[in-house]
């Protein structure tokens, strides 16, 4: 079966590299052309070169890995995805997914992590070629280290004969994952905040070889944490533990490790504090469950949002690194919840990410055409088709509870939607309940309910 993919071209003025010719070594990161021009985001020095280089290497490892492995696809997929960089609000954020979309990594350079000039804001791809990754491995602290993200016009002119162009087919699920992940992150809660020693002890205790299906819980042990096979009330569930071993390279350099977990699911985020840098590693419930298929944004995409409010909020997005719904709401005649909800919808369309350390969204515009991505949610497509074909029949409709029959394959499923729960009689719901988003029948019932509300509003007005 062909993988749904978006044809995409990376255009770099040259390859990224580590220059050792000047007074101080310099990380020269090449940014992909965006809207006809080559972005130039930053020029300056990083305060913790070793740590910065190690964090970027881990990001590159994540993007170059596939933890769940249909072998034939591996090489092609790994060759396709370059990390995404966002410059905004003084932050430089580098992010990307593993090939299987089960692991997300982001390196945040806060304003304290560098001294230099942020010359531009925006989002684009950055080139992480193999020699560049190898050069990052040799960077140490104790020497001044320059960093450039993108190139100025002089450099572009100088390097005009080195242009690099790679045409790739980015799998839709890789793109969808960017939209899904923030839905998990925005509801995660802090479970453990470990000091360096405990973090190091834990990361080093991770077993070297574990079957992919094995499920562990991270539970408290003394002042630190340990792996357990026993579910604990405040434990953090993890599967595919080899993904956490990526942290081993930076554990010895960290100031601490924060572990966040999603109370409504089994995803978790591991934030390694590296002085003024943060390395965030977000892992899905299972290695074979990429974030793309988790259906967390279906609800938002299915809802008919208040377009006026959405446009209003969208208009206020100016590459902020810390989007506060309360500040937006204070200036307008809308509630904080409404702005928050609008932000969540925009984020589900790829216009914002979520920073757990700040507890806020940040603005970024993914450098891909995401219009097609929304149509590629199979469940959403099927749900809309059900509604369009008259596949939803109401049994009862009240404010607190709606009951509907929704057409399945040869049977009609009973769907019940309450304020905080929903249920369907289909096998998918029996297996997953709502941990992987609503099934298509629940989604159809909700879409139909929303449409008829709109119709009623329209009639009454």
């Amino acid at each position, binding site marked *: 079966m062909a993988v749904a993919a978006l044809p995409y071209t990376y255009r770099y003025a040259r390859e990224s590299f580590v220059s050792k010719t000047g007074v101080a070594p310099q990380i020269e990161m090449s940014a992909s052309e965006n809207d006809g021009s080559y972005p130039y985001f930053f020029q300056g020095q990083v305060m913790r070169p070793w740590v910065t280089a190690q964090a970027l*290497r881990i990001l590159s490892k994540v993007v170059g890995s596939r933890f769940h492995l249909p072998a034939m696809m591996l090489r092609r997929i790994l060759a396709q995805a370059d990390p995404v960089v966002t410059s905004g609000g003084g932050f430089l954020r580098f992010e990307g997914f593993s090939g299987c979309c089960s692991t997300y990594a982001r390196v945040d350079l806060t304003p304290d992590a560098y001294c230099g000039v942020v010359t531009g804001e925006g989002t684009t791809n950055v080139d992480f070629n193999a020699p560049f990754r190898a050069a990052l*491995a040799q960077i140490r602290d104790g020497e001044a280290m320059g960093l450039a993200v993108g190139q100025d016009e002089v450099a572009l002119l100088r390097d005009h004969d080195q242009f690099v162009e790679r045409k790739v087919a980015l799998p839709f699920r890789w793109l969808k994952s960017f939209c899904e992940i923030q839905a998990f992150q925005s509801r995660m809660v802090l479970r453990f905040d470990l000091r360096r020693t405990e973090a190091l002890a834990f990361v080093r205790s991770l077993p070297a070889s574990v079957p992919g299906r094995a499920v562990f819980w991270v539970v408290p042990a003394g*002042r630190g944490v340990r792996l357990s096979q026993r579910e604990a009330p405040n434990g953090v569930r993890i599967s595919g533990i080899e993904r956490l071993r990526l942290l081993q390279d930076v554990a010895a350099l960290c100031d601490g490790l924060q572990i966040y977990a999603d109370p409504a699911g089994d995803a978790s985020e591991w934030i390694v504090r590296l002085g003024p840098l943060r390395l965030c590693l977000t892992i899905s419930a299972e290695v074979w469950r990429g974030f793309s298929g988790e259906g967390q944004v279906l609800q938002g995409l299915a809802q008919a949002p208040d377009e006026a409010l959405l446009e209003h909020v969208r208009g206020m997005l100016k590459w902020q690194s810390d989007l506060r719904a309360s500040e937006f709401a204070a200036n307008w005649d809308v509630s904080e919840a409404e702005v928050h909800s609008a932000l969540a919808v925009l984020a589900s369309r790829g216009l914002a990410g979520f920073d757990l350390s700040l507890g806020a969204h940040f603005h970024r515009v993914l450098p891909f055409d995401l219009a097609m991505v929304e149509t590629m949610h199979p469940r959403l497509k099927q749900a809309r088709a059900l509604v369009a074909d008259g596949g939803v029949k109401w049994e009862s409709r009240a404010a607190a509870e709606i009951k509907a029959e929704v057409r399945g394959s*040869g049977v*009609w499923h009973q769907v019940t939607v309450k304020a905080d729960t929903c249920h369907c009689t289909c*096998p998918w719901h029996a297996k997953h309940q709502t941990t992987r988003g609503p099934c298509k029948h629940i989604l159809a019932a909700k879409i139909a309910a929303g449409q008829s509300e709109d119709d009623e509003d329209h009639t009454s007005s």
Partner: protein
Amino acid sequence: MKTTPAPEQLTSAIEKEDTTEVLRILAGLSEEERSNLYHSAITASERGERYNPASSAALLGTASFGQIKKLGWHATPLVPTAFAVLRDRKPDWLQDYAEWQSRSWELIRMLIRDGLCEKPQATEYMHGFIGGTRFWDKQEKTRLSWLLADPEVLNDEVWRLFETEGTSEDNLAAVDKYSKGSASWEQSLLALCQQGHLDRQRLLDASLSALARDFPQFRAGWFSRFHEALTPTVAERSQRVDAYIGLLGSAIPPTAVMALDALIIVDKASPMPADRVLPNIAPVMLAKAKGTAKKAVIWVQTISKREPLCASQVFDLMLKSLLHEATEIQELAMRWIESKADSLTSQQREELEVVRDSISKTLLSRVNSLLGGTHEQPAEKIIAPSSSPTSRLDPSRMLPALKNLDDLLVTVAEALESPLDFLRTESVLHALVMVPVIRDETFIKRTAPLGKRARHFSKNGMMTASLLSECILEWIEPSVKTPIPKDWCQPVKVSGNKHEQFGMLWINRCRMAQTLVRQGLAVPPLATPTHSGGWIDPRELVSRSKVWQKVGASPLLQDQCLALLRMAPEGRAEALADCGDLSGEWGESLRYALGHAKVPATSNPALWASACRSREPKGTSAELERHHPGFGAGFAMPGNHQWVLTHTTNTTVVFHNIVISSSPAVSPKTPADTLAAIFHLPEPINFETPPISRFSATIWPSNMEAFFATAPDILFTRYEVDHDYPMLLEPLLDPFVQMGPMALLTLATGLGCLAPEVRSLSTDALIASIDDGRLVPAELGHIMNRLLLEGSAIPLQRWSKTLSDAARVSTHHAVQIRQVLENTLQGEASQVPRDLVKLIELLHELVASTGTSLETVSTRQFLGSLKTSGRTRKLVAALLAH
């Protein structure tokens, strides 16, 4: 001039498998003529049923490039034939073909040598060079002779080897793993170097450059081994100090170690300045491997002696080493810091203060004396244990009762998707029998999706899902009458394979529920558990029995026996008081099980045996034994388990096994359905088929020793990671499961098992048993002591790690683990394994952290009698000094 051959000629040659004739026919033809012959070639080749070299040659010689790509191996003849075809054909797409087939290195190389194409750009060309030549040695030519025969590759391809990561199969390390001597890449390149065909200095540089390329560890390993195989001289190493320093930060531990060793060699010959070494050495000092970190720390200390002015930098590095997980490294760093105690600045003291809580407790007093003053340990985080239930029948342990259709529909659908939760599945079966339904239109509509799914599973599901599905279909549409085998109620025999017998019991339970649904009697299966662990509230059992009596029906004997075995000890007095009006043998046996003193009747021995095992799981009924003598364990008397460690040797390997036996032996004449006796059969449960194994853990909850008796040998000797072995240990987490000898042996072997998830679960069980006071440390220690002294070959690193994890939970846990260790380290010291130091190290740490000294005299004697040296001797001395 050659005339255009007729298609029949080509067809005939293909059918005769005459490759030479095919080549002759195609020789010198134009592309158009070849194209005209393609149809004949493909038609003839499709007629053949096996590989036909003449057909492949014909296809390669007539098809277009696009067709060749589609044909794949059908158009890929052997190399000499392919070369002959292409050399003759010289198509204008030959360069594209070379790129496409670039992994076929031998063919492409022949084309290049003949000037027919350029070297392909595709990376597969180098992969073909590395791996495609894997079988050269099998063709009676070594890799070395091939390389010498094609000297052009020595100028280009050989050097590109050092820039190529390769694939999982085609990489230098993988190829050399199975190639020895002159067949290996390493030996071939070394020989070429010695013979002067390859430049030695360039090879040294190229191998170091390859190591800087961030290849995966296995592949990088080849380059570090090759570099060392070149045996660089000190002078050569000195010229490459910058490269070695760069590699100190390699993410590949063996690469970093190689670089460290090289630098130490250079330093010994000609001391390196501190400012070259110190800013770059931190990565190896933080290395996980103790040996690497130790080497780095010692080297840094040597440099500090040479250049005292760099003490401040060295202090920073020693501070980092104090955070190393190995106490030995911390001790080394501590010793250096102590040697500089007089010159420590206030800032350095503050920095030391910051790490004080993180270092080994065995060093704490030394840090304290260095920093002066008293130090208060940060308060231990108290982890509130989840409120432990006080009774097996605690409401928190009650299984959810399914009393209405809504609950039932949700739970049935979930159970169908994961039927291996046996307690839930039994509750569902129970509810299908008991929940009253009116099969009207609404019911039909609501159950239609479930019915569809059940029909699917009844045809395609595993046994458990299929049986449940048939019961569901019976419940949804009784009129359809899903077929039930006439002889479905087979007795469960007390012989043969335990696994099969327990499987039969499960099948019968499902069929029984299906039959009851069909009869529409609404009489409850007696043995459905009411509480987790598989327990039944005795009062509920009495209540169920009364329903049967009222209806005038009689429960199945297997159901009765199972119900008795599952009956909880709590609530028996009330149940006994309430069951006076139960008549018949079932009533009598139930009353006997509940504690009534009446001498058991003897008409149904299996029933009375179950009543006896329920009443006194570990006692003997003299009356029952008198009436039915000689049936052995699990009948009138309990079984006792013994274990021995056996060692068998073939020529190279020693196999260790734990052999568990039960006495008295089970008689082959033991009546069928005596469920408790099945556990004592000699053949082990087949735990590789987890469903029934999970069910077997719920059959006799009052005597889990019988269940555990099968586990240790499996955990000890088998470790296939795809099996559900953690299931063997899950019952140990239950606070009402006694830690008898078999449970403890299971725990001890689990703590040392190869599979990390089993070790993790064993640690959980150990912590849980300490939490709820079930663990007697001395008893676990004695079992571990036997395993240790009798040569179990469990790597003690594993025990050390799991015990240390458990000890970290709280001081109380640390004390208990220390006692376990003290009881482990006893006996004849002459037979101890070489890695005993791991346990001694942990004991030393625990003695220090709990602020106590060794309590057991025999442990002191054991440690005192050890013949030790080095670090072990120091640790023993420190322990005995306490």
